[in-house]
Structures are given as structure tokens and as C-alpha cells.
């Protein structure tokens, strides 16, 4: 056991160390090749300019390399596959796309995805923000935060079990083991089959994602909230603003950038969500979503790479507006980077 721990530590050191060495070393080398300290003025300036040309690439280089290999290359591959048949061998043109738009399930997924997009990012961000702000004011805030964070730490399989015990249906009059139906029955209502009521089941599935992702929004927003200059809040207090006004008019606008980040991330996550749908309904009862549909076509029964890839490409296209919006945002805030 000790041997294993040692080797694990060694592996970790090698991995992380290698990374550190790269950045440190690459910069050292750059400084050595184009010295800017201890050389005469003009040369130093020249060297500095050269450094200025190269250093950004030293910084973004590894990220770009990795991203290219791990994401860009697969994206291109996917794009290629989306024009191929199920085995990925014969070119079929736009057949996969035209199939998709004619497919009832696909259209149903688009509709559901839109529903998800309308509800989940807003709900997560809203709840996350509220909880981040409120917990900042109370002494047991950290405990409260941890409890809200907890769902995020639970694996998806775990989460699906949890929600089984929430949504589980037993016929009327029987002992309910799903807490929701137990509550309904306790209040005198009829137990419902939550998960298999078309349309509404979408919302019951969304609740799960909201339950999980609120912690995410909370963590990021709470770190952003800490960055708000205290004095602006003090100024607002003096200006007579009540806590709600401070929240909406002073705090929220100042962390607007972060809210956009959270919103975007969750929106994209929603486009990608499939585990919940997969484990809870697998798209049955009209609860299909794009990502699960893609997954279905990609891997079920040997897979149809062409159609799977086409759906993937459509999902990626769906993100373009978000992308444009974000770039606008980034350009406006200027990032200080001139």
C-alpha cells in the first residue's frame, strides 16, 4: 500500500511538475534568448518586442494544443461523419440532416430542449444568486452553502436514485415510497405518475438538473459577489437603498459579467444534458432531448455515426448565438486588454 501511495505521489509530482516546469522554463528560455535585463537600451527594447510577440503564444500555446487535439479535431471528425452513412464510410451528403428535420422524435427533442433552455439556466442562476447572497449574511452560511452544493458532488447514478425516491409512484392507497406522492397523498390528492406524464415530465426532469446545478451557480456567483467593492454597497446603504434594491441595482449589475458566464455555462450544459433523461426516462413519454437523441443514435445497438454526428453538429450550431453574444460582451468589457 505504501509503495502504491508513493508511486501515486510520484506520478502526481511528475505530472504537475512537468506542467510547472514548462511554463517556468519556457519563460526562462525566452528571457535568455531575448534578454531584456542587463542589456543596453535599444537591444533590450527590441528583445522586449520580440518577447512580446512570442510570450502570448507561450501562454496560450499549451491550451491551444490540447484543445485542438481533444476538441477541435473531434469536432472536425464529427463534421465529416455527419455527411457519412451509419458506418462512417460512405458519403451521403445532407441526408442525415434532412432525415433529422423530418424525424418526429427530433422535432420533439428540439421542442423539449427549448423548454429546458427557457427554464433551467434562469432557474439555476436565480436560485444560485439568491442563495449566494443570503448565505453571505448568516453565520451558518457556509454550512448552508455546502448543503446546496452537495447535489453537485453526487454522481449522476446516485442522483437518479435520489430522485427515484422522490418521484416513485405507487397506486393510490398503497404506501408511497416517493416523497412527492406521499406528500400529495398526505394532502389528500391523488398520487401522480410524475415521470411519465408527457409535457409535464419535462419539468420534473428539469427540477433534477436545477437541483444539481444551483450549487454550481452559487459557487461561482458567490466568488464574484465577494469581489464587489464594499464601498459601493455602503454608498447604496447611505443612499437609503433597502437590501432588495442593493441586491438588484448594485450587486447584480456589478457581477453581470459573471452572471452571463454562469448563464452561458448552464445553457450549454442544458444543450448537452443527457444523463438525467437517460436514467430517468430515456426519452420516453415525449421527454427526449437532443443530446440523448444523439447518444442514442451514436451508441445504441452499434450506432449510426452519421445521424449521431448530424445531431451533434446541430447541437453545436445551437450554441452560435450564445457565442456571438458572449464575444460582444467580452469586447464591451474590453478585458482591459486595450
Amino acid at each position: 500500500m505504501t509503495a502504491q501511495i508513493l508511486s501515486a505521489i510520484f506520478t502526481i509530482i511528475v505530472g504537475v511538475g512537468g506542467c510547472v516546469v514548462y511554463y517556468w522554463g519556457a519563460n526562462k528560455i525566452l528571457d535568455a534568448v531575448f534578454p531584456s535585463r542587463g542589456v543596453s537600451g535599444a537591444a533590450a527594447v527590441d528583445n522586449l518586442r520580440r518577447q512580446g510577440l512570442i510570450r502570448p503564444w507561450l501562454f496560450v500555446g499549451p491550451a491551444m494544443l490540447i484543445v485542438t487535439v481533444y476538441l477541435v479535431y473531434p469536432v472536425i471528425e464529427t463534421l465529416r461523419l455527419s455527411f457519412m452513412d451509419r458506418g462512417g464510410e460512405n458519403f451521403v451528403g445532407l441526408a442525415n440532416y434532412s432525415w433529422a428535420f423530418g424525424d418526429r422524435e427530433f422535432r420533439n427533442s428540439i421542442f423539449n430542449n427549448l423548454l429546458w433552455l427557457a427554464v433551467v439556466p434562469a432557474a439555476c442562476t436565480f436560485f444560485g444568486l439568491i442563495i449566494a447572497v443570503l448565505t453571505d449574511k448568516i453565520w451558518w452560511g457556509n454550512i448552508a452553502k455546502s448543503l446546496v452544493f452537495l447535489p453537485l458532488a453526487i454522481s449522476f447514478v446516485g442522483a437518479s436514485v435520489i430522485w427515484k425516491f422522490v418521484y416513485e409512484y405507487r397506486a393510490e392507497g398503497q404506501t408511497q415510497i416517493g416523497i412527492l406522492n406521499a406528500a400529495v397523498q398526505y394532502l389528500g390528492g391523488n398520487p401522480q405518475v410524475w415521470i411519465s406524464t408527457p409535457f409535464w415530465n419535462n419539468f420534473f426532469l428539469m427540477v433534477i438538473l436545477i437541483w444539481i446545478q444551483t450549487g454550481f451557480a452559487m459557487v461561482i456567483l458567490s466568488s464574484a459577489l465577494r469581489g464587489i467593492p464594499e464601498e459601493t454597497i455602503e454608498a447604496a446603504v447611505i443612499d437609503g437603498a433597502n437590501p432588495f434594491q442593493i441586491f438588484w441595482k448594485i450587486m447584480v449589475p456589478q457581477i453581470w459579467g459573471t452572471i452571463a458566464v454562469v448563464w452561458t455555462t448552464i445553457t450549454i450544459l442544458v444543450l448537452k444534458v443527457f444523463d438525467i433523461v437517460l436514467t430517468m426516462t430515456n426519452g420516453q413519454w415525449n421527454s427526449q432531448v437532443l443530446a440523448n437523441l444523439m447518444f442514442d443514435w451514436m451508441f445504441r445497438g452499434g450506432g449510426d455515426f452519421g445521424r449521431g454526428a448530424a445531431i451533434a453538429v446541430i447541437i453545436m450550431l445551437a450554441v452560435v448565438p450564445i457565442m456571438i453574444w458572449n464575444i460582444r460582451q467580452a469586447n464591451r468589457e474590453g478585458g482591459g486588454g486595450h
Partner: protein
Amino acid sequence: MASSRGKSFIGRFGVHIAVLVFVAIWTIPTLGILVSSLRDKDQLIVSGWWTALSTSSQTEAGRTDAADKQVEKDGKFLIMGNLFGAGDARTVTAFGTKAQQPTQFEAGTAADLGEGVTLQVNDDGSYVMSSPKAFEITRGQRVYFSASAPPRFTTDNYRTVLFSEGIGRSFINSLTVTIPATIIPILIAAYAAYALAWMRFPGRALLIAVIIGLLVVPLQMSLIPLLKLYNGVGLFFGVPAKTYLGIWLAHTGFGLPFAIYLLRSYIAGLPREIMESARIDGASDFEIFVKIVLPLSFPVLASFAIFQFLWVWNDLLVAMVFLGSGSDQLVLTGKLNALLGSRGGDWEILTTSAFVTIIVPLIVFFSLQRYFVRGLLAGSVKGG
């Protein structure tokens, strides 16, 4: 926060109540599995987990001993015993001998089974069956009874999970995967984020766009091309295709867009004067990054670290694809997964392992939470 003082009692109380309600709603499902993980398998689907905390009454079936245990006494043949095992604290309230009428007789009374055979069950579960003739039954008589049971919990599920063979090893494997797969992307992303926020170079805007676009790439899509690549590289260099390095890089790759996106938006918001001041002090970008930006970005680095850690720690798919499943590579999730039966439904194991895996991320969350400090930038610049 300055406003936290001097607030009216109601105002302060309101916040507590609001948070309490919120937290309660958020916690109930989780509490459900915590309780469930402490119950035994059969109970799990019979009654709601919330009832586990109170005394419950259940109707069950038991069986008397068979004829081989009979004794003869006063010309009567008796079979005596107890329906409950040792240490069972339940009490019988009623019993019966027909499934349709399981509570026909009160505890302590004798039931007539015909042909002179009687059965008496007492509230402690002991019974006496007597017959004028010798019993011939090879299996005991079925007895139905209604018993009230105090809350019953078991740590068996945890024992199963925690002491399953090789779990310690998987734990270390998981850490070996997770720690570098958390730190490496932070480093790489932080450098890139700084460059994208504060350095001038051609193509910067395009890079930002690409990063945001890549956020949406579904992970499943990249698995096959990547694995092909790994196999190719492995073959070419004659090294195994599935290594720790491979999975670190894979996790790094999948985590990078979000990391860069998140960090960039934060780093771009740091006060520009501080960077300028450092630049005038003669610091190079590298030094500015290491000495100014990194320390000031702790809150966001901590947030990202938490998420990346979580995602890697709970990941099974990437680990199974890019890391072998031998015992020196099997990660914790994989190990717990293997404890589950092939057809699922081992909810007691699922609930338990959900709790076991939660612990480490929670520790990480707690320990990183203190980096979410308020007013990190306070006092640095004056102005709006």
C-alpha cells in the same frame, strides 16, 4: 457586509428562515438517500424512507419449526420456538394462519387450526403449536403476524462498500487521476486566460470565440477519434495507449474551455491600474501573472478547482475509456460500479456509494471555500 448590522429583528430572522427553507428543499432528496443507505434492502421499497425514523407496523410472514423439533408433553405434541431471531426487538400485535386474514387472532390467544391443533403466538414472537397427534409436517406452519418495529438501521451497506476488496487501491488510483487532472488544467487555463484578457496578440478575439464554441462539444463525440489517436500514438512509440498521462490530458482537454472561459472573465475584471503599476515596476507578463494575477484570482481558481475536481472524481466514462480497468488503474467510481449487480436495482449499494464518493469532494469544497475571500481587491485603487 456593512448592512448586516443594525437590521431589524424581522429582517434578520427572515434571511434565516428563507435560507432554512431553501436548504431544506435542497437537502430532502439527499437526506432521503442518506437514510436509505442506512436501511436494509428489503425495507427500502416497502416503505418511504422518512418512515424509517419512526416505529412502523408491518404485516409479515414467518414459519414455525418443522416436525423434527417437536416434543411430546402431557400426551400432546408441541412445537415451540420464536418467530423472531435473537435480538429482534419487534412486538407482535396480532397473527393469523391465512394470508387473507393475517391478523385474525390477537397476540397471546390460541388459534384453532382444526383437528385439535392449536397455535398460540405471544407478543414477543414466541409460539406454541400443539397437537394431539404427532406432527408430520416437513416444513413449518406459515404464520402471518403484524408486528410493530422500532426504527431499524444497519451499517451493513457501508461495510459492503467500504470493505470491499481493492477499494483502498481504487481510492488512491482515483486521487492519482484527479489531483493532476485538476491542477494541470488550472495552470494551463490560467495562463491562457491571462493572455486572452491582458496580452495583445493577433487572433485573440478569434481564440476567445473558439473557446466558447468548444464549450458545447459533447464529450461522447470525441471519445472514438481520441481513442484512435491514443492507440496510434501508443503503437507508434511502443507504449501502452492507456496511461495516467493520457487521462490527465483528456480531462484537461475536456475541462479547458470552461476553465479558460471562467478564468478569463474574472481576470479581465481585475483593476487595470494594478497591472499597469506592475508593468511600470518592470515586471514581465510572466511575473505579473505569477505575482499579481494568480494571487488575486484565488476565488475563481478555487471555484474552478472544485468543479474540475468533482467532475473528474465522479467520472466513470472517461476513466473507463482512457484508463485501463486493471486493479492498478481502476478508479473508485469504477470499483463502486462493479459492486452493483448487472441489472441495477441495488439501491442500497447505490445510495451508499453515492455517500462514500461525496466525502472527498465535500472536503475539497470546504477547504477551498476559504479562498472565496471578500474584498480581495479592497484598498487597491480608488474610484468608481
